[in-house]
């Protein structure tokens, strides 16, 4: 029985400033699904959080108190999620994360009304560690920025990786020059490099790495090799392996339709973030088919069932409401003028996260 | 024809009016003394001439040019050299740099200025800010000369100087008048020296003209009333 009453979805995401690209992608993917569905009675309100935690908290308050939204989504960054999610779920509203999956929310602080549609933060790093074993890498040099997500990243990699570490470095958050780190890599005798440097940091690192003459294989999570920023990295990224739960060449009808529709509507290839936005919207719509958010238990069960056509193919939630999914290894290639990825292997199959056990729900 | 001519000039600092109609004429090669008690508008008159303060009414002409239309630097380039009240040398610059900054082609250059004030030659590469008061005063006079002006304006140029130096400066002014043929507008409190050198005196009182004529002929009651002597 389709829900007849109006459903209001609030999207809080980053639409201005340096990190806006990710927010724009999530929003565009999300709205594409909503428009394709075209049903009446679903209203989406979108607000820019400027990547400021306090702004995000206030927008959430407003959406809940004034606009009376039933569901919130959209946040890109872990620190904003940590600020917003607990307060939102405590007020009895559903939150679906289209990106960010901080470990606390997967473990000790999990909540029945919180669902993560993307990944737990460690997932892609774990897959990279597993891939390193498969690829026979025995002596990795690993680096990440010195903040919680960075530490989680290296921890995630080390959780799966079985070889030796020739070096482990935490860089400054927002650092743009990596000459010193690259020199250390050169001197370390490593056989490969694993790095997690999101956004501009990754672009800088790769360009400088390519120019340094160091020639070791590089592995990273998808964040530094995604559609939005690959063009800015250019040739420097060619051949790099990266891990992702999605790519545009995953072979299923939902994905093919999504890629084509996205390209048609926005004139660019969809990114990982767009796919996550798209999946989030479709998940919500599938649950709305079964229950109203006001009927919390029913709606929660409908979400948990996750009966929608994910662009990733198989998709299901674990007990802590985080995905259990395959994570692939991609390689950066050039198609015509455009840099993009193709899947070359599967890193982890049906993988859940390491914190599920801590979640008591 | 007069070189500089002011007619009915009025000017204000924000809401406070300071000049209420000042008239002033200076001919080529003439030395005019502008006099008056403290706060009567002498420096303000000078600032309006130099374009540092806008006249709200009246006419200001220099050599046929309407000064009210011109920004400060263009006025200076017409040939007006200013020695301002309170010295205002460029403190972080050396003596030589102070002079170079102002230099424009003409007979006055560093060598000639150094002849007039040999002390400056000795202090050539000292920062102007650490010069003694008198040295700074010499520097600002030299700086104005380096612009090779036709009209030199001296606002309290002998303030704070030792009597000997003061005599030197008066001698220099006299020399500028006779040998260099400069027109000079001079503000100073020393009546004795002014009457020796100036062709004419103009007294301001509360922002407008109170008396004009040869200083020697200033009636005693006026001197008392307008100058306090």
């Amino acid at each position: 029985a389709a829900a007849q009453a109006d459903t209001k979805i609030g999207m809080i995401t980053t639409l201005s400033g340096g990190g806006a690209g990710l927010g724009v992608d999530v929003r565009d993917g999300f709205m594409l699904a909503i428009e394709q569905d075209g049903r009446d009675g679903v209203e989406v309100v979108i607000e820019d959080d400027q990547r400021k935690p306090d702004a995000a908290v206030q927008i959430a308050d407003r959406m809940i108190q004034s606009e009376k939204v039933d569901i919130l989504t959209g946040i890109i960054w872990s620190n904003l999620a940590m600020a917003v999610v607990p307060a939102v779920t405590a007020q009895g509203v559903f939150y679906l994360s289209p990106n960010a999956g901080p470990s606390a929310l997967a473990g000790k602080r999990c909540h029945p009304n919180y669902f993560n549609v993307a990944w737990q933060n460690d997932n892609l790093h774990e897959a990279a560690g597993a891939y390193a074993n498969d690829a026979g890498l025995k002596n990795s040099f690993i680096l990440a920025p010195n903040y919680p997500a960075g530490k989680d990243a290296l921890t995630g990699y080390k959780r799966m990786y079985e070889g030796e570490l020739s070096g482990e470095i935490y860089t400054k958050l927002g650092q743009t020059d990596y000459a010193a780190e690259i020199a250390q890599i050169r001197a370390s005798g490593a056989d490969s490099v694993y790095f997690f440097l999101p956004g501009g940091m990754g672009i800088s690192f790769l360009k400088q790495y390519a120019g340094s003459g160091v020639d070791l294989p590089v592995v990273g999570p998808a964040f530094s090799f995604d559609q939005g920023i690959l063009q800015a990295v250019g040739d420097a990224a060619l051949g790099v392996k990266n891990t992702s739960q999605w790519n545009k060449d995953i072979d299923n009808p939902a994905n093919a339709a999504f890629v084509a529709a996205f390209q048609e509507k926005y004139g660019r290839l969809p990114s990982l973030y767009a796919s996550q936005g798209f999946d989030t919207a479709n998940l919500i719509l599938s649950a709305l088919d079964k229950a109203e958010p006001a009927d919390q238990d029913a709606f929660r069960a409908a979400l948990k069932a996750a009966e929608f056509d994910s662009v990733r193919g198989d998709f299901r939630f674990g007990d802590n409401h985080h995905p259990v999914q395959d994570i692939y290894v991609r390689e950066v290639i050039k198609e015509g003028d455009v840099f993009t990825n193709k899947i070359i292997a599967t890193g982890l199959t049906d993988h859940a996260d390491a914190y599920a056990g801590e979640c008591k729900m | 024809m007069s070189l500089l001519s002011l007619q009915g000039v009025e000017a204000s600092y924000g809401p406070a009016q300071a000049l209420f109609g000042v008239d002033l004429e200076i001919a080529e090669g003439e030395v005019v003394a502008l006099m008056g008690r403290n706060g009567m508008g002498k420096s303000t008159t000078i600032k309006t001439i130099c374009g540092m303060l806008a006249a709200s009414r009246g006419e200001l002409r220099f050599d046929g040019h309407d000064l009210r239309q011109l920004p400060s630097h263009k006025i200076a380039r017409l040939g007006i050299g200013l020695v301002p009240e309170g010295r205002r040398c460029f403190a972080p610059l050396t003596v030589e740099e102070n002079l170079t900054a102002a230099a424009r082609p003409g007979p006055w250059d560093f060598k000639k200025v150094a002849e007039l004030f040999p002390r400056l030659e000795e202090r050539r590469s000292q920062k102007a800010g650490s010069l003694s008061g008198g040295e700074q005063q010499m520097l600002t006079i030299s700086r104005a000369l380096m612009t090779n002006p036709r009209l030199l304006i001296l606002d309290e140029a002998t303030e704070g100087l030792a009597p000997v130096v003061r005599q030197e400066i008066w001698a220099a002014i006299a020399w500028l008048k006779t040998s260099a043929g400069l027109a000079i507008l001079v503000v100073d409190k020393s009546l004795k020296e002014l009457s020796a050198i100036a062709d004419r005196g103009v007294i301001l009182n509360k922002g407008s003209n109170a008396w004009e004529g040869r200083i020697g002929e200033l009636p005693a009651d006026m001197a008392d009333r307008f100058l306090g002597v």
Partner: protein
Amino acid sequence: MMVTRESLLNWAMIAALLLVPLAAWSLDEPFIITLATKAAILALAGVGLNIALGLGGLISLGHAAFFGIGGYAMGILAAHAQNYEPLFEWPFLFEGSNQMPLIWLTAVVFSALAALVIGALSLRTSGVYFIMITLAFGQMLYYFAISWSAYGGEDGLSIWVRNEFPGLNTLDPIQFFAIAYVILCGALFFAARLARSPFGLALAAARQNEDRVEAVGLTPFTLRLTAFVISGAITGLAGALFADLNRFVSPTMLSWHTSGEIMIFVILGGVGRLYGPVAGAALYIVLEHLLGGISDYWQIFLGVLLLLIVLFARGGLIGAIAGREKAHG
């Protein structure tokens, strides 16, 4: 005291800051109340900064340090109170606290201490160097907080429920607003008295002419340091309230952007105007709120508006409305 246009305006402003949320309360628009609370708290931070900046002429670009310390005082005390993990056991067992008065006291004490240390070092410099050295200390704390994993690092610390105040329900927006409003009024009253006190006279004189103050036998350094400490303490108190408003604290509160924003409230309202920060914070928040909906590029409009205000409304908002003359004594 003479009734000037400025004092009328001040009364109007402080009344509006009270009436708007009251109206919103009766119309059941809790978010407007939240906005007003935010304005009141940020104005409080501005009032703190204004004591250093307007009265003492100390342009501090590091006040986020105190704002953040206040925030972390709240975060740490409340987190321990929630976890039942004692904060320390010696000399006595302390399990944190979720009582606002105790949190405020902690915030004030620690931000004052920080201001004492930072001020004592920074006040050896002046002018632009002072601006930058305060910024440096702010950044040090910022980077420290980012990597301080015990309290969440860059992710920050989240508190589910607002802390408690005896006799009030702080979760009710209007009641929490009332707390912030009363504190703001208290700070304004204090700042007004301070400006006219012997200390205020000497402090402002040190801003205008240091030599003169020394020559009458007063030490500008001590005057400034005292002002800096008072200023930091008030801003720290604002930080604790702000964290409570969001039920969240993170290193963002310590970043130089935050310092810049607090400073912008002060400048926007009018430097040295007692109520300047109130006007500035309110305007900024309203603008941010109204423009946010216009387009993705709304910050362009915000920029243009700010620019117009600086260029054409000299003396800030209050200056533009009430006239340039500052009221003295």
